[in-house]
Protein backbone atom coordinates (compact mmCIF):
# COMPACT_ATOMS: atom_id res chain seq x y z
CA UNK A 1 0.00 0.00 0.00
CA UNK A 2 2.69 2.40 1.06
CA UNK A 3 4.59 1.76 -2.11
CA UNK A 4 1.49 2.38 -4.15
CA UNK A 5 0.87 5.66 -2.38
CA UNK A 6 4.43 6.77 -2.95
CA UNK A 7 4.16 5.81 -6.56
CA UNK A 8 0.99 7.76 -7.12
CA UNK A 9 2.50 10.74 -5.33
CA UNK A 10 5.63 10.64 -7.41
CA UNK A 11 3.49 10.33 -10.51
CA UNK A 12 1.60 13.43 -9.47
CA UNK A 13 4.84 15.27 -8.99
CA UNK A 14 6.07 14.15 -12.36
CA UNK A 15 2.80 15.23 -13.87
CA UNK A 16 3.21 18.68 -12.40
CA UNK A 17 6.72 19.24 -13.61
CA UNK A 18 5.98 19.96 -17.26
CA UNK A 19 3.52 22.68 -16.23
CA UNK A 20 6.28 24.37 -14.30
CA UNK A 21 8.54 24.25 -17.33
CA UNK A 22 5.89 25.89 -19.46
CA UNK A 23 6.09 29.07 -17.40
CA UNK A 24 9.77 29.86 -17.02
CA UNK A 25 10.01 32.20 -14.03
CA UNK A 26 12.62 34.90 -13.73
CA UNK A 27 14.42 32.57 -11.33
CA UNK A 28 14.63 29.94 -14.05
CA UNK A 29 16.15 32.48 -16.39
CA UNK A 30 18.71 33.40 -13.77
CA UNK A 31 19.62 29.77 -13.39
CA UNK A 32 20.05 29.57 -17.14
CA UNK A 33 22.30 32.58 -17.04
CA UNK A 34 24.50 30.80 -14.53
CA UNK A 35 24.90 28.05 -17.03
CA UNK A 36 23.12 25.40 -15.00
CA UNK A 37 20.55 24.32 -17.52
CA UNK A 38 19.43 20.76 -17.82
CA UNK A 39 21.16 18.84 -20.52
CA UNK A 40 18.46 17.96 -23.07
CA UNK A 41 17.13 14.47 -22.48
CA UNK A 42 17.33 13.45 -26.09
CA UNK A 43 17.56 9.82 -26.85
CA UNK A 44 20.99 9.53 -28.37
CA UNK A 45 20.19 6.38 -30.26
CA UNK A 46 18.53 7.72 -33.39
CA UNK A 47 20.49 5.56 -35.79
CA UNK A 48 19.12 7.19 -38.92
CA UNK A 49 20.00 10.81 -39.53
CA UNK A 50 18.28 13.04 -42.03
CA UNK A 51 19.63 15.80 -44.26
CA UNK A 52 17.34 18.19 -46.05
CA UNK A 53 18.45 19.83 -49.29
CA UNK A 54 16.00 22.70 -49.66
CA UNK A 55 15.69 25.94 -51.58
CA UNK A 56 18.72 27.03 -53.49
CA UNK A 57 22.11 25.40 -53.17
CA UNK A 58 24.32 28.27 -52.15
CA UNK A 59 27.71 28.74 -53.76
CA UNK A 60 30.55 31.07 -52.85
CA UNK A 61 28.26 34.10 -52.67
CA UNK A 62 26.01 34.30 -49.59
CA UNK A 63 22.42 34.86 -50.62
CA UNK A 64 20.21 37.35 -48.74
CA UNK A 65 18.41 35.87 -45.70
CA UNK A 66 14.97 35.89 -47.35
CA UNK A 67 16.17 33.13 -49.70
CA UNK A 68 15.90 29.57 -48.48
CA UNK A 69 19.29 28.05 -49.00
CA UNK A 70 21.31 24.91 -48.44
CA UNK A 71 24.80 25.92 -47.42
CA UNK A 72 27.72 23.57 -48.02
CA UNK A 73 29.49 24.87 -44.92
CA UNK A 74 26.59 23.44 -42.91
CA UNK A 75 26.17 20.17 -44.79
CA UNK A 76 29.79 19.10 -45.21
CA UNK A 77 30.71 19.12 -41.47
CA UNK A 78 27.45 17.24 -40.77
CA UNK A 79 28.42 14.59 -43.31
CA UNK A 80 31.88 14.29 -41.76
CA UNK A 81 30.26 13.89 -38.32
CA UNK A 82 27.85 11.26 -39.68
CA UNK A 83 30.74 9.32 -41.19
CA UNK A 84 32.66 9.37 -37.90
CA UNK A 85 29.84 8.65 -35.45
CA UNK A 86 29.54 4.87 -35.02
CA UNK A 87 25.98 5.22 -33.62
CA UNK A 88 24.69 6.57 -36.91
CA UNK A 89 23.96 3.70 -39.25
CA UNK A 90 22.22 5.34 -42.17
CA UNK A 91 21.32 8.67 -43.75
CA UNK A 92 18.12 9.81 -45.40
CA UNK A 93 18.42 12.70 -47.87
CA UNK A 94 15.29 14.70 -48.61
CA UNK A 95 15.39 16.97 -51.64
CA UNK A 96 13.16 19.82 -52.59
CA UNK A 97 15.50 22.13 -54.42
CA UNK A 98 15.52 24.47 -57.39
CA UNK A 99 19.21 23.86 -58.04
CA UNK A 100 22.03 26.31 -57.58
CA UNK A 101 25.81 26.43 -57.57
CA UNK A 102 27.37 23.65 -59.66
CA UNK A 103 30.54 23.22 -57.62
CA UNK A 104 28.77 23.27 -54.26
CA UNK A 105 26.20 20.77 -55.56
CA UNK A 106 28.89 18.45 -56.91
CA UNK A 107 30.80 18.72 -53.62
CA UNK A 108 27.73 17.54 -51.68
CA UNK A 109 27.10 14.78 -54.25
CA UNK A 110 30.66 13.49 -54.00
CA UNK A 111 30.54 13.50 -50.21
CA UNK A 112 27.30 11.49 -50.27
CA UNK A 113 28.58 9.07 -52.90
CA UNK A 114 31.72 8.31 -50.89
CA UNK A 115 29.97 7.99 -47.51
CA UNK A 116 30.58 4.48 -46.18
CA UNK A 117 27.13 4.24 -44.55
CA UNK A 118 23.91 3.38 -46.42
CA UNK A 119 22.22 6.42 -47.98
CA UNK A 120 18.74 6.76 -49.46
CA UNK A 121 17.37 9.88 -51.16
CA UNK A 122 13.80 11.02 -51.77
CA UNK A 123 12.89 13.76 -54.21
CA UNK A 124 9.74 15.54 -53.04
CA UNK A 125 8.27 18.42 -54.97
CA UNK A 126 11.29 19.18 -57.09
CA UNK A 127 14.90 18.16 -57.49
CA UNK A 128 15.95 20.39 -60.33
CA UNK A 129 19.26 21.06 -62.10
CA UNK A 130 22.10 20.38 -59.65
CA UNK A 131 19.60 18.50 -57.46
CA UNK A 132 19.83 15.65 -60.02
CA UNK A 133 23.43 14.62 -59.15
CA UNK A 134 22.63 14.88 -55.43
CA UNK A 135 19.58 12.61 -55.83
CA UNK A 136 21.48 9.95 -57.78
CA UNK A 137 24.56 10.05 -55.51
CA UNK A 138 22.81 7.93 -52.85
CA UNK A 139 22.82 4.12 -52.72
CA UNK A 140 19.12 4.04 -53.55
CA UNK A 141 16.97 6.90 -54.83
CA UNK A 142 13.23 7.49 -54.60
CA UNK A 143 11.02 10.07 -56.26
CA UNK A 144 7.49 10.99 -55.25
CA UNK A 145 4.92 10.37 -57.99
CA UNK A 146 4.24 14.10 -58.31
CA UNK A 147 7.83 15.29 -57.99
CA UNK A 148 9.73 16.63 -60.97
CA UNK A 149 13.33 17.06 -62.02
CA UNK A 150 14.33 19.60 -64.66
CA UNK A 151 17.34 18.55 -66.70
CA UNK A 152 18.87 21.38 -68.68
CA UNK A 153 22.30 22.65 -69.76
CA UNK A 154 24.40 24.67 -67.31
CA UNK A 155 23.93 28.39 -67.55
CA UNK A 156 25.91 31.37 -66.46
CA UNK A 157 24.50 34.56 -65.03
CA UNK A 158 26.41 37.80 -65.02
CA UNK A 159 29.19 39.04 -67.21
CA UNK A 160 30.95 36.80 -69.71
CA UNK A 161 34.58 37.66 -70.37
CA UNK A 162 36.09 35.91 -73.37
CA UNK A 163 33.42 33.89 -75.12
CA UNK A 164 35.45 30.88 -76.41
CA UNK A 165 37.19 30.35 -73.07
CA UNK A 166 33.91 30.64 -71.16
CA UNK A 167 32.18 28.25 -73.53
CA UNK A 168 34.92 25.66 -73.13
CA UNK A 169 34.84 26.05 -69.35
CA UNK A 170 31.07 25.64 -69.26
CA UNK A 171 31.26 22.64 -71.55
CA UNK A 172 33.74 20.95 -69.23
CA UNK A 173 31.65 21.83 -66.19
CA UNK A 174 28.63 20.28 -67.85
CA UNK A 175 30.61 17.12 -68.60
CA UNK A 176 31.36 16.80 -64.88
CA UNK A 177 27.63 16.81 -64.12
CA UNK A 178 26.80 14.41 -66.96
CA UNK A 179 29.61 12.02 -65.95
CA UNK A 180 28.57 12.03 -62.31
CA UNK A 181 24.91 11.35 -63.08
CA UNK A 182 25.62 8.56 -65.59
CA UNK A 183 28.14 6.95 -63.23
CA UNK A 184 25.75 6.89 -60.25
CA UNK A 185 22.47 5.99 -61.97
CA UNK A 186 21.24 3.64 -64.67
CA UNK A 187 20.67 6.33 -67.28
CA UNK A 188 22.91 6.29 -70.35
CA UNK A 189 24.95 9.34 -71.31
CA UNK A 190 23.15 9.49 -74.62
CA UNK A 191 19.70 9.50 -73.02
CA UNK A 192 20.68 12.07 -70.40
CA UNK A 193 22.09 14.42 -73.05
CA UNK A 194 18.98 13.89 -75.19
CA UNK A 195 16.83 15.04 -72.26
CA UNK A 196 19.18 17.91 -71.53
CA UNK A 197 19.12 19.32 -75.05
CA UNK A 198 15.53 18.44 -75.96
CA UNK A 199 13.57 21.22 -77.63
CA UNK A 200 9.90 21.98 -77.22
CA UNK A 201 9.44 20.55 -73.73
CA UNK A 202 10.14 23.77 -71.87
CA UNK A 203 8.32 26.12 -74.26
CA UNK A 204 11.21 28.03 -75.89
CA UNK A 205 13.97 26.70 -73.68
CA UNK A 206 16.04 23.55 -74.07
CA UNK A 207 15.83 20.74 -71.55
CA UNK A 208 13.19 18.38 -70.13
CA UNK A 209 10.99 18.42 -67.07
CA UNK A 210 10.95 14.78 -65.94
CA UNK A 211 8.05 13.73 -63.68
CA UNK A 212 8.40 10.91 -61.07
CA UNK A 213 7.48 7.76 -63.04
CA UNK A 214 9.36 9.04 -66.14
CA UNK A 215 12.55 9.54 -64.10
CA UNK A 216 12.33 5.88 -63.06
CA UNK A 217 11.62 4.77 -66.63
CA UNK A 218 14.73 6.60 -67.93
CA UNK A 219 16.84 4.90 -65.24
CA UNK A 220 17.70 8.17 -63.53
CA UNK A 221 15.98 7.29 -60.24
CA UNK A 222 15.55 3.77 -58.83
CA UNK A 223 11.95 3.80 -57.61
CA UNK A 224 8.76 5.84 -57.25
CA UNK A 225 7.90 6.13 -53.58
CA UNK A 226 7.67 8.22 -50.44
CA UNK A 227 8.89 8.28 -46.88
CA UNK A 228 7.62 4.84 -45.86
CA UNK A 229 9.31 3.01 -48.72
CA UNK A 230 12.51 5.03 -48.27
CA UNK A 231 12.77 4.17 -44.56
CA UNK A 232 12.09 0.51 -45.29
CA UNK A 233 14.80 0.46 -47.94
CA UNK A 234 17.26 2.25 -45.66
CA UNK A 235 16.67 -0.25 -42.84
CA UNK A 236 17.15 -3.06 -45.33
CA UNK A 237 20.45 -1.56 -46.54
CA UNK A 238 21.62 -1.10 -42.94
CA UNK A 239 20.92 -4.77 -42.19
CA UNK A 240 22.76 -5.81 -45.35
CA UNK A 241 25.80 -3.70 -44.50
CA UNK A 242 25.83 -5.21 -40.98
CA UNK A 243 25.90 -8.72 -42.42
CA UNK A 244 28.78 -7.94 -44.77
CA UNK A 245 30.73 -6.19 -41.97
CA UNK A 246 30.30 -9.20 -39.68
CA UNK A 247 31.41 -11.44 -42.50
CA UNK A 248 34.61 -9.44 -42.88
CA UNK A 249 35.45 -9.78 -39.17
CA UNK A 250 35.27 -13.55 -39.34
Amino acid at each position, binding site marked *: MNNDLQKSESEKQEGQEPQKEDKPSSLM*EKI*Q*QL*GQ*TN*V*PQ*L*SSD*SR*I*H*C*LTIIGQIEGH*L*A*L*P*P*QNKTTKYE*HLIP*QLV*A*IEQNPKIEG*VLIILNTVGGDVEAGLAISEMLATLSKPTVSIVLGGGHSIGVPIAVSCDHSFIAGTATMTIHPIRL*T*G*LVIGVPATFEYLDKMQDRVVNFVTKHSNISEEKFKDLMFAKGNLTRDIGTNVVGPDAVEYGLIDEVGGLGQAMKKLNQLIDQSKVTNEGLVQ
Partner: protein
Amino acid sequence: MILYTTMPQEYIFPTDSESFTKQQTVTYQGVSLLVEQSDSQNVQVVRVLSSDPQHYLDERICPGAKISCASILGLSANF
Protein backbone atom coordinates in the same frame (compact mmCIF):
# COMPACT_ATOMS: atom_id res chain seq x y z
CA MET B 1 10.07 49.90 -64.86
CA ILE B 2 10.93 46.90 -67.00
CA LEU B 3 14.50 45.68 -67.07
CA TYR B 4 15.88 43.70 -70.00
CA THR B 5 19.36 42.58 -69.03
CA THR B 6 21.61 39.57 -68.51
CA MET B 7 22.85 40.99 -65.21
CA PRO B 8 21.64 39.02 -62.19
CA GLN B 9 19.14 40.72 -59.94
CA GLU B 10 21.57 40.90 -56.99
CA TYR B 11 23.97 43.03 -59.05
CA ILE B 12 21.31 45.57 -59.93
CA PHE B 13 19.56 45.65 -56.55
CA PRO B 14 22.21 44.80 -53.97
CA THR B 15 20.78 43.75 -50.60
CA ASP B 16 21.69 46.02 -47.71
CA SER B 17 24.33 44.49 -45.48
CA GLU B 18 22.07 45.08 -42.47
CA SER B 19 19.82 42.18 -43.43
CA PHE B 20 22.81 39.82 -43.30
CA THR B 21 23.72 40.72 -39.73
CA LYS B 22 20.17 40.17 -38.49
CA GLN B 23 20.49 36.41 -38.71
CA GLN B 24 23.23 34.43 -37.05
CA THR B 25 24.23 30.82 -36.56
CA VAL B 26 24.66 29.84 -32.91
CA THR B 27 25.14 26.68 -30.90
CA TYR B 28 22.56 26.14 -28.16
CA GLN B 29 22.62 22.97 -26.04
CA GLY B 30 24.86 21.33 -28.58
CA VAL B 31 22.59 22.05 -31.53
CA SER B 32 23.37 24.54 -34.30
CA LEU B 33 20.55 27.00 -34.82
CA LEU B 34 19.93 29.87 -37.20
CA VAL B 35 18.54 32.67 -35.03
CA GLU B 36 17.17 36.15 -35.54
CA GLN B 37 17.14 38.95 -32.99
CA SER B 38 13.57 39.41 -31.69
CA ASP B 39 14.19 41.94 -28.91
CA SER B 40 17.16 43.14 -26.92
CA GLN B 41 17.22 40.10 -24.67
CA ASN B 42 15.96 37.26 -26.80
CA VAL B 43 16.56 35.66 -30.13
CA GLN B 44 14.05 33.66 -32.13
CA VAL B 45 14.89 30.37 -33.79
CA VAL B 46 14.56 30.50 -37.59
CA ARG B 47 15.96 27.12 -38.53
CA VAL B 48 17.44 24.06 -36.85
CA LEU B 49 20.70 23.04 -38.50
CA SER B 50 21.04 19.42 -37.49
CA SER B 51 20.94 16.03 -39.10
CA ASP B 52 19.51 14.37 -35.98
CA PRO B 53 15.73 14.00 -36.35
CA GLN B 54 15.34 14.04 -32.53
CA HIS B 55 16.46 17.68 -32.41
CA TYR B 56 13.45 18.69 -34.47
CA LEU B 57 11.14 17.28 -31.80
CA ASP B 58 12.65 19.37 -29.00
CA GLU B 59 10.15 22.15 -28.38
CA ARG B 60 12.74 24.42 -26.76
CA ILE B 61 14.52 24.86 -30.07
CA CYS B 62 11.68 24.51 -32.55
CA PRO B 63 11.43 27.35 -35.10
CA GLY B 64 9.75 30.34 -33.49
CA ALA B 65 10.92 29.51 -29.97
CA LYS B 66 12.56 32.34 -28.07
CA ILE B 67 15.90 31.86 -26.37
CA SER B 68 17.51 34.38 -24.04
CA CYS B 69 20.79 35.76 -25.38
CA ALA B 70 22.56 35.08 -22.10
CA SER B 71 22.10 31.33 -22.40
CA ILE B 72 23.82 31.19 -25.79
CA LEU B 73 27.54 30.80 -25.89
CA GLY B 74 29.57 32.61 -28.49
CA LEU B 75 26.95 35.18 -29.37
CA SER B 76 28.63 38.41 -30.36
CA ALA B 77 28.53 41.32 -27.91
CA ASN B 78 26.41 43.58 -30.09
CA PHE B 79 23.66 41.02 -30.13
